[in-house]
């Protein structure tokens, strides 16, 4: 079973067998999974997909496993919410929230990529899973490794939010905090991966791992009634998700499950870490790495591996990149919560804040379909809201105290 032809360098085109490798041995370019699409087109239909259980594996043929998944079987198929209140507030007609803040089991889209990577790691017979993470991936790897009965090593910058740290430790992983930013962690992990035969989901298993992100895109198309969205706004850290969403739309078109169309891809970053957006605005495909300084820690990657391709994805699709400040991030988190009842993490604040800006700038037309990609949950980044919400009153338990409070509140209106 399986429809993977092999791996291919995205830069120089050299081909490789499907092994746990992520870079071209010649030019260091990234390896990409190549599928036999003609065969997939013969077996995969809308009917076949919709007859399957509501999880990410309903698109199994388009994922890089040789066999059925062995872990993470219930991941995916999160809600695509028609956001009427938010649409009114932003002055647009057709707005959706793809809500991976409620991804099973660890409340971020990283459950998708990890489900693929750990299933693949088992196919390759690894006994230890590892990753470099800004937090969400740490949660997902620790949880999935625990459920798979595998050992895990998780490397993070030492200053992450408490929710991300505890939400990793609880699964009994080997958590290592590194003094430094994500790029320091990543560099160390590249060296560790060179030395130990572990399945680093975002290093040696990266070509397979990253494919899991495509399911976020397949679901959007299916949930829109087998139609491509006209505009998608995506948060960017390493820049992989936006390129994989584009790939998911292209694949569904290629195998004939959706009519040809154009989706403009928009990328979102925080002002304190915006190497990709800065390059898009300058009109160059070379980005300059930065030292991140933002409350959106899950997006704080100063040297994004897929930065080059993310830039290409935005410009080729007719999209654009934009950034928001820490204050704008918090305001957008509150806006989403107050209009749609969805509590997203700081990265979601980045994505919605950028969406708002792009609409105001006219870059996203008000009368077209817009999908905002919400990839993580606000309960994990509560620090960002400390002191930013109205202080609530505390009273004694007498009815007249409450009535007095009510009178006071109403007199203030």
């Amino acid at each position: 079973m399986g429809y993977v032809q092999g791996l291919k360098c995205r830069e120089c085109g050299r081909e490789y067998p499907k092994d746990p490798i992520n870079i071209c041995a010649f030019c260091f370019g990234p390896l990409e999974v190549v599928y036999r699409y003609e065969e997939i087109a013969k077996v995969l239909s809308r009917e076949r997909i919709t007859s399957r259980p509501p999880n990410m594996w309903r698109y199994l043929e388009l994922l890089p496993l040789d066999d059925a998944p062995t872990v993470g079987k219930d991941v995916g198929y999160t809600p695509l919410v028609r956001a009427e209140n938010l649409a009114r507030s932003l002055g647009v007609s057709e707005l959706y929230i793809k809500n991976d803040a409620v991804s099973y089991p660890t409340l971020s889209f990283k459950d998708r990529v990890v489900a693929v990577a750990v299933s693949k790691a088992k196919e390759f017979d690894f006994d230890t899973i590892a990753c470099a993470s800004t937090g969400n991936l740490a949660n997902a790897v620790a949880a999935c490794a625990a459920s798979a009965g595998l050992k895990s090593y998780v490397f993070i910058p030492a200053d992450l939010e408490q929710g991300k740290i505890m939400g990793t430790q609880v699964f009994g992983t080997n958590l290592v905090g590194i003094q430094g930013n994500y790029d320091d962690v990543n560099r160390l992990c590249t060296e560790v991966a060179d030395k130990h035969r572990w399945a680093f989901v975002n290093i040696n298993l990266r070509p397979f791992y990253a494919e899991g992100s495509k399911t976020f895109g397949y679901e959007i198309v299916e949930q829109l009634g087998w139609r491509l969205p006209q505009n998608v706004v995506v948060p960017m850290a390493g820049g992989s998700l936006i390129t994989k969403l584009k790939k998911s739309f292209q694949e569904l078109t290629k195998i004939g499950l959706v009519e040809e169309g154009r989706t403009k891809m928009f990328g979102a970053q925080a002002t304190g870490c915006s190497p990709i957006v800065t390059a898009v605005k300058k009109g160059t495909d070379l980005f300059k790495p930065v030292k991140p300084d933002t409350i959106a820690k899950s997006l704080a990657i100063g040297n994004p591996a897929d930065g080059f391709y993310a830039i290409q994805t935005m410009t080729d699709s007719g999209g654009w990149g934009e950034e928001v400040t820490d204050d704008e991030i918090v305001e957008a988190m509150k806006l989403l919560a107050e209009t749609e009842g969805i509590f997203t993490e700081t990265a979601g604040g980045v994505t919605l804040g950028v969406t708002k800006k792009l609409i105001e700038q006219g870059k996203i037309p008000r009368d077209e379909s817009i999908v905002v990609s919400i990839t993580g949950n606000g309960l994990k980044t509560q620090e960002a809201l400390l002191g930013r919400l109205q202080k609530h009153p505390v009273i004694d338990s007498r009815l007249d105290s409450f009535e007095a409070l009510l009178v006071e509140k109403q007199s203030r209106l």
Partner: protein
Amino acid sequence: MSVTVIIPTPLRSLTNGAPEVSVEGKTVREIIANLEKEYAGIQERICDENANLRRFVNVYLNDEDIRFLNDLETEIHDGDGLSIVPAIAGG
């Protein structure tokens, strides 16, 4: 000036399997040129046809990405360590 250069796995076939080698040079550019003299073929793996660093190669002087310093013109001091690290990781 002599520095230790850490060689990533994909390039070790060119250094007879050595994970690190010692090379002379005053700048990163000179180090790479001297690496090429000693281990023919290594330069085209690290640099493109315009002699710039390839897009997916990171070079660190001690703990700093040379793009935060003076890129290939970054000066080297005795006892420095240079690492060549593949960029495609993480995210």
